[in-house]
């Protein structure tokens, strides 16, 4: 199996059902939770692993739903007070979800988290970050909020590792200009 195969990262089979995959994902998130590691090197390593696991899970959900990206919001698994909002979000009906949240007076951690999700889905990352941070601060033990908050914190690192994963090397671009120059000279002399 390929090194980047999301199924092998989670240690599951291609034909496993959604529940099994979700369980495997949750177990791995617990295993790599940064709070479990006091040593900083280990902590970084665990964090990297966590990123990988998050990405693998996201990819599987994506591939399986194809039209519906990101986390999967099942109403049965999450018994929070905003199940309707979650179902709107999973359908991509962000405006409806936003309207319910706006009119709600119950501004708990989940309220901040879900507004964060809506912002994130629309590419408003600066706002999303602040809302996830707030949700996490209000309820630090909640895995969902922590994961979202960590994902925000690691955005730059994730992008960088994508770029370096593609074989980026910070070559001096002046060398390129030099090559071009030489090439041009050789073209002229031909």
């Amino acid at each position, binding site marked *: 199996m390929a090194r980047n195969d999301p199924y092998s990262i989670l240690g599951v089979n291609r034909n496993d059902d959604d529940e099994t995959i979700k369980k495997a994902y949750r177990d791995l998130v617990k295993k790599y939770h940064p709070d479990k590691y006091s040593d900083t090197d280990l902590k970084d390593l665990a964090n990297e692993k966590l990123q990988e696991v998050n990405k693998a899970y996201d990819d599987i959900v*994506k591939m399986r739903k194809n039209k519906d990206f990101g986390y999967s919001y099942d109403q049965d698994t999450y018994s929070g007070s905003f199940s309707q909002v979650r179902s709107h979000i999973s359908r991509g009906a962000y405006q409806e979800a936003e309207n319910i949240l706006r009119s709600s007076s119950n501004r708990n951690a989940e309220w901040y988290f879900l507004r964060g999700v809506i912002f994130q889905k629309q*590419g408003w*990352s600066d706002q999303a*970050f602040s809302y996830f941070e707030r949700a996490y601060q209000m309820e630090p033990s909640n895995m969902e909020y922590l994961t979202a908050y960590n994902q925000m914190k690691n955005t730059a690192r994730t992008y960088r590792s994508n*770029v370096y994963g593609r074989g*980026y090397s910070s*070559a001096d*671009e002046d060398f390129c200009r030099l090559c071009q120059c030489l090439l*041009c000279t050789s073209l*002229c002399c031909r």
Partner: protein
Amino acid sequence: MIGYIKTYQPELKMKDLVRYNAYYCGVCHAIKKDWGQIPRLTLNYDCVFIALFIDSFKQEQLNYENFRCPVHPVIKKKKLLYNESLEFTADINVYLTYLKFLDNIKDEGGFKYKSGEKYLRKLAKDIEGKYPDLVSTIKDYMIELHSLEESGSDNLDEVSHCYAQIVRDICIYQLKKLNIESDILSLAGTTAYNLGKWVYTIDAYEDMEEDIKNNSYNPFLKRFDYTKEESLEDFKQRIFDRATFILYSPLQNAATSYGEIELIDDTYIDPLLQNILYEGLYSVTEKILEGEEKIGKK
């Protein structure tokens, strides 16, 4: 806010570099053909990217022609032959430059921009007649952007949203004509949106120094409560982590949606665009964060 979307040449294949340059020359010639010599000076990389991006969904045979460029008279160059998408890009390039001039007049005034604006205004009117619906949406977003800037908004997402929508709508306008699935269309729109957002944001970041000097609006200064007592260096240091996040997250979002297109149908994926999207924009962002050099042009 133009000229940031670039390739990263050390990692670029020769054939892709040739294609990129042929697009650049192709758009330049299209501007000359449709609008005359002077507006050719306004050609910028972002519009070349828009042409490449739209064409990557067309998958048609490209026709090149050799020519001699007066700016580089010694070497023979390849250009893309005039076609519908070069025509569109040339028009959009001229129109966006016109908007940029309007913006600069508002910020700084000055004879240079005023005379340029006067000249471009005539051309802009023609372009408006050609694409009335598109131009009217662009104008709506410009007005919205203007009023947010006037009110001194500290919401970076909201301010950059306007420019992001403009870039998105420009791409969608052309892509809609093609027979592509709605999923892919919407992902392409999201990619364009985030690139537009990145361009606005990084331009604002680079303009901080000038905006402090001219006492003009800058969303970063508002967002992080800049006061005159603070030096720009200290300010940049203070906001560094969050600014890094703010600059990278649209790139990450663009890469994610482009990656999703690949998951659905990888025949749409163009290695040249991948080079820009990953290595090119990464390199520009790093340089600007490190404060190395001025990248965008006024």
